[in-house]
């Protein structure tokens, strides 16, 4: 095999690309994994992982220069002194905002899996049936049952802590034991059961190891110690990221070639063979161009960059982007609406507190419009829920008195409770990305124009969240209830999806039920770009399950010589 020829090429070494690389390498296929950013080796490249809060020069805060130079990146909750090195800085990779859009990115081996929030809820049958039932986007070509075994497959490798809750709206998985709930989380859960038939407050399933199993030992991972600084990378491997699991696993097979600093310019299409033959790569440092060849290409560069690469993959056959005969590529981008929050206090359990920490909170699965349409907006929202003891410190005055007051810090017996909305947005043709006709980046690739915004459905959903959660909090006896629309811009949820959607009909979608481009069957898209709709759940688990499923399908097809 020539040094630039492989069985498979995977574009993007994040969570989705990591899964594709693992599946192919494990089953004997020579695989090239391309990543535009630098390498991040587990353990070796987590520079802040063991730093204590008092060891940071700015105690974890950003400098004025950080904020001034990075208005987009610094809007992300995890872009702080301890982990900012894992985020793309605003100046490094510009894009065009037709409307304000916070594109939060992590260009390195491991991608955003290093800094992600680690919430892993399965989708349900209601999510996959949603577009067909409610008449938006197009019908998904798959259903929950198609993905169910792959969810299990992924969970067993990743390690997911959770409870079996028996909810059809949020199917159970293969879970490791959960952390304890606290008294107020349990109380709120019980109260909701008393007042509502369909509103559940459950433990938020998260990608953390709470039990040791042979596969985790083989990965070299230990139990999560609840450090809650996961965004720095975990020296224990206590949470899942691609760096500690998928990539070393694939490298161990001897079948994976990992090439960091490799910016994929486009997928190469052979007009005679009528299929893709490889990719064109620009070296991130030298800017030199090189082509790599393979039978199958997986494009998993993260949602918007996957759109960018495919739109930029032009040929005589596909002048508007690879597989884009219907002109829909880049359209129907959607995301999650995280604008609404609610805070309150609870004065029950004044004699109870917590000890230690846990890396997750509670979760309220979607209860709006699940079984039938019941509101004047489409779809609904899930929500996080957290409760923690309030601490009071008197910081008035100055001098020795002030110091004495600080030493009297204490819990008040009151609990602070909060919830935040995770709303499904409706994919629309007008929410789209496209190539800029004039501006190119330093690698000669057109910049991406992003034209995405909220709509009236989102505004109505926010108001409904405020009303419903105010009612739920009131019924639970919470006081001092305050709602807030944080007005965060689209993109800040870091759950952008779509643009290369799956569907049954090549006229109205780009990918088939196995994530192959309808018009170029040896190119697969399995990251967020493939999503037909967004549901409300954090999407990473679904990206991974879809990728594992598609990769194994591709393997079958390659073995049969069909692609």
């Amino acid at each position, binding site marked *: 095999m020539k040094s630039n020829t492989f069985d498979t090429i995977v574009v993007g070494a994040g969570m989705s690309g990591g899964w594709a690389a693992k599946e192919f390498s494990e089953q004997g296929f020579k695989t090239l994994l391309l990543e535009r950013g630098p390498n991040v080796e587990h353990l070796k490249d987590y520079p802040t992982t063991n730093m*204590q*809060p*008092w*060891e940071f*020069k*700015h*105690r974890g*805060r*950003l*400098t*004025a*220069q950080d904020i*001034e130079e990075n208005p987009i990146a610094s809007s992300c909750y995890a872009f702080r002194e301890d982990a900012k090195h894992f985020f793309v800085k605003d100046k490094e990779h510009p894009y065009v905002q037709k409307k304000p859009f916070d594109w939060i990115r992590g260009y390195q081996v491991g991608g955003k899996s290093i800094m992600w929030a680690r919430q892993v809820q399965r989708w349900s049958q209601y999510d996959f049936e949603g577009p067909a039932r409610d008449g938006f986007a197009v019908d998904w070509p798959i259903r929950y049952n198609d993905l169910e075994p792959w969810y299990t497959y992924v969970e067993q490798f990743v390690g997911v802590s959770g409870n079996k809750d028996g909810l059809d709206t949020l199917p159970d998985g293969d879970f490791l034991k959960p*952390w*304890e*709930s*606290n*008294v107020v*989380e*349990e109380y709120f859960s019980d109260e909701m059961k008393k007042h509502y038939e369909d509103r559940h407050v459950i433990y938020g399933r998260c990608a953390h190891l709470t039990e040791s199993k042979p596969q985790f030992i083989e990965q070299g991972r230990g*139990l999560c*110690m*609840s*450090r809650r600084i996961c965004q720095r990378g975990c020296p224990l491997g206590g949470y899942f990221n691609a760096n500690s699991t998928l990539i070393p696993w694939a490298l161990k097979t001897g079948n994976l070639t990992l090439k960091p600093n490799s910016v994929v310019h486009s997928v190469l299409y052979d007009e005679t063979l009528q299929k893709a033959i490889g990719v064109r790569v620009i070296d991130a440092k030298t800017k030199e161009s090189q082509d790599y060849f393979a039978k199958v290409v997986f494009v998993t560069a993260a949602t918007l960059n996957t759109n960018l690469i495919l739109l930029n993959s032009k040929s005589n056959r596909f002048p508007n982007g690879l597989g884009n005969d219907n002109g829909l590529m880049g359209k129907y981008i959607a995301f999650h609406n995280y604008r609404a929050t609610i805070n309150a206090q609870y004065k029950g359990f*004044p*004699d*109870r*507190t*917590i*000890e*230690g*920490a*846990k890396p997750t909170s509670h979760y309220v699965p979607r209860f709006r419009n699940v079984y039938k349409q019941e509101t004047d907006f489409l779809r609904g929202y899930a929500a996080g829920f957290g409760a923690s003891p309030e*601490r009071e*410190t008197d*910081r008035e*005055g*100055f*001098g*020795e*008195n*002030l*110091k004495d007051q*600080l*030493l009297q*810090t204490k*819990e008040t*017996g009151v609990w602070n409770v909060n919830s935040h909305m995770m709303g499904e947005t409706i994919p629309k043709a007008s929410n789209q990305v496209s190539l800029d006709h004039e501006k190119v980046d330093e690698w000669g690739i057109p910049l991406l124009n992003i034209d995405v915004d909220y709509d009236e459905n989102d505004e109505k959903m926010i108001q409904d969240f405020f009303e419903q959660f105010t009612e739920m909090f009131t019924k639970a006896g919470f006081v001092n209830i305050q709602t807030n629309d944080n007005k965060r811009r689209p993109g800040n949820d870091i759950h952008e999806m779509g643009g290369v959607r799956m569907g049954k009909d090549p006229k109205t979608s780009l990918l088939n039920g196995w994530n192959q481009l309808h018009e170029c069957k040896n190119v697969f898209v399995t990251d967020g770009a493939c999503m037909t709709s967004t549901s409300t759940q954090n999407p990473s688990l679904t990206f991974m399950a879809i990728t594992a499923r598609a990769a194994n399908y591709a393997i079958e097809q390659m073995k049969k010589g069909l692609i």
Partner: protein
Amino acid sequence: MNRRDAIKNVGLIAGGLTLIPYACSLTPEIVYSNLPNIKKEQQDLIGWLCNCILPEDIENFPTPEIRQNFVLTQVNDCLTSEEQAEFLLGFENIQLALSPTKEIKIEMLTPEEQLAFLTLHFEGEGVITGFLETLKNYSLLHFESSEKYMKNYLSYEFMPGRYLGNVTV
């Protein structure tokens, strides 16, 4: 602030003068890139004020850096240029408020006069108050992020490894 509090603070300030007279501090001069005009003596004055606002306790609450350096680093790095200009204006004004000719230095006042001076300006609303509040906020951050304070008073654990959700207070 009541009389008992005031007396306690007088004690602190007097003690501070005995231990750390800012005008003859041994702290080496550090050049802060965004505060080039804050010279050694002024850096020491800022450190002295920080200690008056929240006494540094190196023995019981050690930190990687002394208060003066920490606060000036935050002012240098974390305030915007507009905020730094306001901070410097407040600093200039507090020196002028002490003595229009800057001939009188704060350590030349009696502890009672120092207390009265700081109390007066903490309770105001102008740039001097803003300056003092900035010193206070960063002094609080320095103290409250010290290892001993976090561990002994905020129940901080680096690797708790457990979560108990129903613990009797």
